[in-house]
C-alpha cells in the first residue's frame, strides 16, 4: 500500500512539474514584458524632472512632485474629459450598430457566411489605416462627406473637420465607431446563437411581437455578454492611441488630446517621463474603477 501511495505521490509531483513546465514560457513572457514594465512605470512616476537619457532616469530626484504637478494641471483634467467624451461617444453608437447588425445576422439566409464576414471586415483594418481613410473622407476641400452634406443642403460652406476645434473630436469618433462596431457584432451574435431556439418558437406560438421577442428573450439572453463587451470595448477606446494620433496628434489645441495621447506626448514630445508615467497611473486607476463597477460580470468571465 505504501508503495502505491508513494508512486501516486511521485506521479502527482511529475504532473505538477509538467503543468508548470508548460506554463513557464507564458510566465516568463508576462513577468518580463508586462509585470516588469508596469513596475518600471510606477518607479518612473516618482522620478522628477525631464531627461533626454531614458537610461539615467533612476538618478533623478525621487518624490511626489510629478503627481502634484500633473494633478494640479488643468490640461490633465481637460484630457480626462476628452477621454470620457471620446470613449462614450464612440462606444455607445458602436454598440447600437453592433446590436443592429447582430440581429440582422442572427437568421438563416443565403450567403450568410460571406455577408457576415463583410460586416465584420472593418475590424481587420489597422487603426492608423482607418484614420487615413477617414482623413480623406473628411477632407476639408475634396472630402466626400462635405460633398454629401452640401448635396443634402445641410451645410453651405465646407467644414474643416480635423482643423476645427469643435468638430475634431467628432471626426476622430466616427472612424473609431467604424473600427469598433464589429467587435460588438461578433460577441453579441455569438451570444444570440447560444439562446435556445425553442424559446423563440414558444413565443411565436403565443403570438409575441418582434419587439416583445427582443425584450423578453433576446435581450435577457445576451445581457451578460453585452455588459462584458461594453466594458472591454470601453477599455479599448479609453486607451486607443493609433486612430487619434494619425488623424490629429491630439490637436487642434488639445481638442482631441485624450490621456493616452497626452502620456505619449509628455514622454516622447517633451521628455517628461515621470509625468507621462503619472498620467499612465491615472489611466490605470480610472480603468480599474470601471472594472470594479462591472465586477460582477468580470468575475464570471475572468476568475
Amino acid at each position, binding site marked *: 500500500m505504501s508503495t502505491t501511495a508513494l508512486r501516486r505521490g511521485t506521479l502527482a509531483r511529475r504532473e505538477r512539474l509538467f503543468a508548470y513546465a508548460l506554463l513557464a514560457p507564458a510566465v516568463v513572457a508576462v513577468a518580463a*514584458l508586462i509585470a516588469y514594465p508596469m513596475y518600471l512605470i510606477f518607479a518612473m512616476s516618482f522620478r522628477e524632472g525631464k531627461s533626454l537619457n531614458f537610461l539615467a532616469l533612476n538618478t533623478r530626484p525621487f518624490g511626489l512632485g510629478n503627481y502634484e504637478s500633473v494633478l494640479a494641471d488643468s490640461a490633465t483634467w481637460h484630457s480626462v474629459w476628452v477621454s470620457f467624451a471620446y470613449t462614450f461617444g464612440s462606444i455607445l453608437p458602436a454598440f447600437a450598430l453592433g446590436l443592429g447588425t447582430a440581429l*440582422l445576422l442572427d437568421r438563416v*439566409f443565403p450567403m450568410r457566411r460571406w455577408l457576415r464576414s463583410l460586416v*465584420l471586415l472593418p475590424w481587420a483594418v489597422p487603426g492608423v489605416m482607418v484614420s487615413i481613410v*477617414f482623413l480623406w473622407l473628411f477632407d476639408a476641400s475634396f472630402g466626400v462627406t462635405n460633398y454629401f452634406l452640401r448635396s443634402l443642403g445641410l451645410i453651405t460652406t465646407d467644414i474643416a473637420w480635423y482643423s476645427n476645434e469643435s468638430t475634431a473630436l467628432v471626426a476622430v469618433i466616427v472612424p473609431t465607431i467604424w473600427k469598433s462596431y464589429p467587435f460588438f457584432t461578433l460577441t453579441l451574435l455569438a451570444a444570440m446563437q447560444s439562446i435556445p431556439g425553442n424559446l423563440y418558437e414558444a413565443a411565436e406560438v403565443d403570438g409575441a411581437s418582434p419587439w416583445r421577442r427582443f425584450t423578453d428573450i433576446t435581450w435577457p439572453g445576451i445581457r451578460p455578454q453585452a455588459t462584458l463587451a461594453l466594458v472591454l470595448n470601453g477599455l479599448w477606446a479609453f486607451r486607443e492611441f493609433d486612430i487619434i494620433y494619425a488623424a490629429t496628434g491630439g490637436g487642434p489645441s488639445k481638442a482631441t488630446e485624450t*490621456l493616452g495621447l497626452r502620456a*505619449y506626448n509628455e514622454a516622447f514630445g517633451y521628455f517628461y517621463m515621470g509625468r*507621462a508615467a503619472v498620467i499612465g497611473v491615472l489611466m490605470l486607476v480610472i480603468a480599474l474603477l470601471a472594472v470594479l463597477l462591472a465586477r460582477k460580470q468580470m468575475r464570471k468571465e475572468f476568475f
Partner: protein
Amino acid sequence: MLTRRWGWTVAVALLCAVLLFPFYWMFVTAVLPTSQVLSRSPTLLPSLADMSFQAFVTAFERKPLATWLTNSLIVTIGATTISLVIAALAGYSLSRFRTRAQELTGLTLLLTKMLPGSLIVIPFFIMASTFHLIDSLWALMLANAAVGVPFATWLLKGFFDGIPRDLEHAAMIDGCGHLSAFAYVIIPLARPGLAACAIYLAILSWSDFVFAKTLINDQARWTITTGMVSFIGEHGIEWSALMAAGILSMVPMIVLFLLLEPFLVSGMTAGSQR
C-alpha cells in the same frame, strides 16, 4: 419562404454597402485620375474608361512600400508564432491542471486590457535601449507577442476545456507520453481554436503602430503602419497614391480574415457558452 430569405440577403447586402463605403471610396480614389479625385463634385460611380492602376505603381516608386510590407510580414509571422506556441502550452496547462497560476490568468488578462499601448511603450523603449534592440525587428516581435499572449492563452484554454480528457488518457494508456499526447492528439483537435487565435494575433501585430513608431527609427526597418503615417505629414498629399498604398497594406489581413472568419465566430461562440 425562399423569397423572404433572399429578401433578407438583399437587406443585409445593402447595409454592407453602406458600412463598407470607406473601402469603396479608397478604391475609387486609387483608380481615378487626380483631376477627378480633387474635385468639388466627385464621381461616385466612375466609368471603366477612366480607371487606371497607375497610382499603385506611383505608390511603389514614391516610397519603399515593398520593404515596409516585408518588415510587417516578418514581425507579424514572428510575433504570431511566438505567442501561439507560448499560449498553446500555457492554455493546455491551465485547462488540465489546477495550479496557483490559474488564479492569476484572469487578472493578467484584465491588466493587459487596461494597459495602454502608448504607456507600456515607454518601459519597452527603455528595455530595448538597454539591450541595444532599438531598430531591431526582434524588439517589435517581442513587444507584439507580449501583448497577445494573455488573450490567446485565455481563448485557447476555453478550446482545450471543450476537448474531453479521455482522449489524451487513452493515448497515454497506449504508451504515449503526456507531451506527445498533447502534440499528436489534442493539438489537431484544437485546430479551429488555433486558427481563431492566429488570426486575432496576426491582426494585432499587423495593426501595431505605437511600438513600431517608438522602437524603430531607421526608415528601412519601418513597418507598413509607420510608413503609411509618414505620408500624412507631407505637403499636398497624393491621395490616389496614398489610397493605393493603403489598399495594398490592408490586403493581407483582409484575405486572411475573409478565409478564417468562421473560426473566429465559432471561437467566440465556444467562449461565450462556457
